[in-house]
């Protein structure tokens, strides 16, 4: 693809709410949009950026932003103009939701219209958008849409829409027998690295990216340390009845851990 005269864009020729190229998206801003920090590369027009928590935005935030733990990563762009969004030269795409829901890895979401509302998914590290409107998300390589039932590599998962039951799936072979126990405990021997997937069933769509390389997420959006909240509790075991909390206590070399349980010792 050799283009002799690269296309030059200006305020009027930039697309309105469409991709400029696969890596940059132009928002025709007329009002407000939510934007993840650092994803704006350039803009024409009169646009102000407000951190979330800015007084005059209270009503907007109350209706469309329900992720206090991500508040530090998001801003509101307010004004009129064309706004160019991009993310580390990854592919960006816009999606339209029509009274729907879509859950996406938090680091992959670039921006969304305030007619949608953003909530934290109960799956840690993911955000759910509910409502009607447009949002922009990035993926490392092109996005592919697949229909459940499907099992997806954890690193390749970008998000999903409508699927009611995202869950973990472990291959039985991997867990079986003494070798399985040794593998599970030490990570040594025979592991192909593909024994664990995310499984989706039911009606919906799953979004996968074409690489297993994740974007470096900002370490944000930890869920509250509360009983019954998956992945909660930065301090292991503190969550009361959550015996199987997200955090596993580190295993000492002498302990048999999983093996012990497996053989009923």
């Amino acid at each position, binding site marked *: 693809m050799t283009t002799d005269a690269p296309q030059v864009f200006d305020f009027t020729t930039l697309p309105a709410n469409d991709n400029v190229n696969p890596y940059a998206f132009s928002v025709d801003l007329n009002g407000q949009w939510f934007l993840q*920090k650092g994803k*704006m590369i*350039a*803009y*024409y027009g009169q646009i102000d950026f407000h951190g979330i928590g800015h007084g005059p935005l209270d009503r907007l935030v109350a209706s469309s932003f329900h992720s206090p733990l991500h508040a530090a990563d998001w801003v509101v762009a307010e004004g009129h103009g064309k706004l160019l969004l991009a993310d580390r030269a990854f592919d960006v795409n816009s999606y339209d939701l029509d009274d729907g829901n879509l859950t996406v890895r938090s680091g992959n979401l670039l921006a969304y219209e305030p007619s949608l509302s953003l909530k934290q998914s109960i799956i840690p590290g993911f955000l759910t958008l509910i409502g009607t409107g447009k949002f922009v998300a990035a993926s490392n390589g092109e996005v592919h849409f697949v229909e459940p039932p499907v099992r997806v590599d954890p690193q390749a998962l970008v998000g999903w829409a409508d699927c009611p039951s995202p869950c973990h799936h472990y291959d039985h072979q991997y867990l079986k027998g003494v070798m399985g126990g040794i593998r599970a405990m030490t990570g040594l021997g025979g592991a192909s690295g593909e024994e664990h997937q995310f499984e989706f069933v039911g009606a919906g769509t799953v979004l996968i990216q074409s690489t297993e390389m994740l974007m470096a997420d900002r370490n944000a959006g930890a869920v509250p340390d509360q009983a019954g909240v998956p992945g909660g509790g930065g301090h292991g075991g503190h969550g009361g009845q959550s015996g199987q909390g997200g955090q596993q206590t580190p295993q000492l070399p002498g302990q048999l851990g999983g093996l012990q349980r497996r053989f009923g010792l």
Partner: protein
Amino acid sequence: MAQFRLHGTKVLAVTLSGGGDTVKAKNGSMVAYDGQMAFKKMTGGGEGIRGMVTRRLTGEQMTVMEVKGQGTCFFADRASDISLVRLNGEKLHVEASNLLCTDAGLHTGTSFTGLRGATQGNGLFTTAVEGTGEAALMSAGPAVLLRVSQGAPLQVDPGAYVAHQGNLRQSFQSGVNFRTFMGEGSGEAFQIRFEGDGLVYVQPSERNTVGGEL
């Protein structure tokens, strides 16, 4: 005169016709060549002692090699996307780290650009390329060309800025206020504002800048 053309979007092919035909390229960016080529590292960007000292002082260091010979030489760097810019006596301002290759008919120098560089961590200066010939720019992802005209100024994130040309005034725009210090910064606290007539090259990616965290 060296012929520049793109092979795909990430490889630059330069055809040299011999007889003192040379280009300057980023040191180590040659990936293949055919014909006869000689590569010579140019200390201090090939701008002499004065240029070398200036570059060292301004932080716009570039290590450049001179490529001379007959044949086709291919250049690429970390799978960066490449844009070709043809200059007929105009001046192009570019971040030193985004300059891949220039024709021998162009000369490079360091120019003061104001406070913009401060947020970028690579100094207050850019590299000015001037003369007649072609220059190849690198960007993380294909560069987007944005026109600035009277009445339509453009604001660019310092981390996404690659280059600009034309009659542009740039100023530094800051949205830092007391909220920034309360941890409620907008993350878009610094922008470069371009006014006038010209073109700005923007990459769909951001370098890490001090400003990006605010």
